[in-house]
């Protein structure tokens, strides 16, 4: 069966810090409705790759396309139209500390829609309920645990009903139960909202729970792309070591 059109495609992507190449020759396609995992050892360039896909850092060379549209070199205003269709959960949550949980989730709705305050309030409550945190809507980020902060960040990322959700190390620093609950939440959201989800992680348990497709970064380049089963059966030593030991790098 022919694969559907990718929602994101990277071609010959290279990222550098100064003269040092961090990743190069990255070619990959993110397919709609799938959970794609970008994995690799510490310092392999996973987060750099994510930042380049999101244009938080401008790629040194190569191409990044969203829904077939090239975004490298695209002007900021046009790229904002694309940003409205994606949501990002940062590693530490990156909530705005000076405002409440409710206001954190309401920000994108207030800034990018012309909805009435009552509709916005209703939507914020729904999004917080999706991450099971409706009860904490009037609390401030400083009053939340690490896991709660990540769930609020997820609710904020979902505020505008994104078509693609990016999560940078969503389970980092969480206990196994909270991490599993967050993974279940992502699976639930994918099922309900039919989103494409891209997760950067090296948490093996999460990879096993979530992955439809994995992209293994090693030695600055993409070592493997395919399903989790294919990755395990690939016979590539670095990947075998990763899955056998649970650690890498």
């Amino acid at each position, binding site marked *: 069966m022919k694969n559907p059109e990718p929602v994101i495609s990277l071609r010959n992507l290279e990222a550098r810090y100064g003269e040092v190449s961090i990743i190069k020759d990255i070619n990959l396609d993110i397919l709609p409705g799938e959970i794609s995992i970008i994995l690799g050892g510490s310092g392999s360039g996973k987060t750099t790759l994510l930042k380049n896909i999101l244009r938080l850092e401008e790629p040194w060379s190569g191409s990044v396309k969203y829904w077939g549209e090239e975004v490298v070199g695209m002007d900021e205003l046009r790229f904002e139209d694309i940003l409205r269709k994606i949501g990002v959960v940062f590693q530490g949550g990156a909530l705005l*500390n*000076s405002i409440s949980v409710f206001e954190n989730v309401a920000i994108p*709705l207030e800034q*990018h*829609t*012309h*909805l*009435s305050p*009552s*509709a*916005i309030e*209703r*939507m914020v*409550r*729904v*999004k917080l*309920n*999706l991450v099971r945190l*409706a*009860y904490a*809507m*009037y609390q*401030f*980020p*400083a009053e939340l645990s690490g896991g709660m902060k990540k769930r609020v960040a997820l609710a904020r990322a979902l505020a*505008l*009903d994104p078509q693609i959700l990016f999560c940078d190390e969503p389970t980092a620093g969480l206990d196994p139960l909270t991490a599993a609950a967050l993974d279940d939440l992502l699976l639930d959201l994918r099922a*309900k*909202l039919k989103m494409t989800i891209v997760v950067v992680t090296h948490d093996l348990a999460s990879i096993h729970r979530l992955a439809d497709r994995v992209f293994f970064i090693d030695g600055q380049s993409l070592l493997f792309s395919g399903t989790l089963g294919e990755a395990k059966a690939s016979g590539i030593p670095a990947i075998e070591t990763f899955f056998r030991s649970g650690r890498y790098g």
Partner: protein
Amino acid sequence: MPQISAVGNTLVLAGEITAATVPRLQKELSHVLRQKKVSHLDASGIARMDSAGVAFWEELVLKLSKRGPLTIQPASEEIRGVLDSFRSLDLEDVPRPREPGWLERIGGSVVDFWSSFKDSLYLASDVFYWSIVGIWDRHAARKGSLAHQCIVLGQTALPIVGLLSFIVGFIISLQGAIPLRDLGGGHYLANILAFGMVNELAPLFTAIIVAGRSGSAIASEIATMKVTEELDALRMMALNPVRYVVVPKFHALTLMMPLLVTFSILLGELGGAIIALGYLGISPEVFISRSVSVLGLSDFLITYAKSIVFAWLIVIIGAHYGFRVAGGAEGVGRSTTSSVVASILAVIIADAVFSLLYL
């Protein structure tokens, strides 16, 4: 394209009901509802819906239900799935935290102030105790920490203290020179400037600059250490954070403040001398002799005592706000701001007390 229309008593919603189309639909809806009485809602023509569309739908259903009995022609299965995913009607209301009244706010401020004041007194006693112990028992101090703090808190403040004092001396002399010359008392400028700089301006200006510069640095450094658990780590290594972090700053600023004040006096005098010598034509000898004649040893002793008290206030208040930080990075900013405001206020009050005591 979204559509909203009324056929008889039926309100028909069709097309895309999304964040982009809801504001327009809301306007059209109020127009339609003014003209028709709706008792049936047809959602079968909705092609696409997002969470904003669901919020709009739910508000519409609630509004129409209040007006009378309402029947609904269901949407497609796909849209029903979306309605189900973003359903808010059966969510429990979360009560908003109650805002305190004005009396409670005033009471809270008083209690906060009193508790903060008590804490700072406790901290001050701790700092004084460890600073005296620390003079003889140096083994718990980091090697070179005193010199390092002298450079950070004192030496690096020299340029700004010098520049501002020079400008202040220059401006005061400029403002005073014209009326003094008109009154035939131009040579008194040296007396006025020397007396003002030594007794009031130099210690006060220096303290305000140091409070803004070094006091904020002390507060933010300690607050950041608390937020990042460095202070807890020190405690767990059986190191007293006050002794390890605050006392070197306390010693350093106690030493450096009189030096900064001296520097401020000299630069202020230099600024004034330019006007006295250049504009009023006073000779350097007269300027110096008149400046010295108006000052006694007690003036310098009080000024240096004052500057040391200011230094203590700045360090203790900075450390106090650093230690009581709450709320992560945001809290660090708040603590820093509060410490600067409180130290400047404390310095000015202390200056007023000194002025009253040594009139």
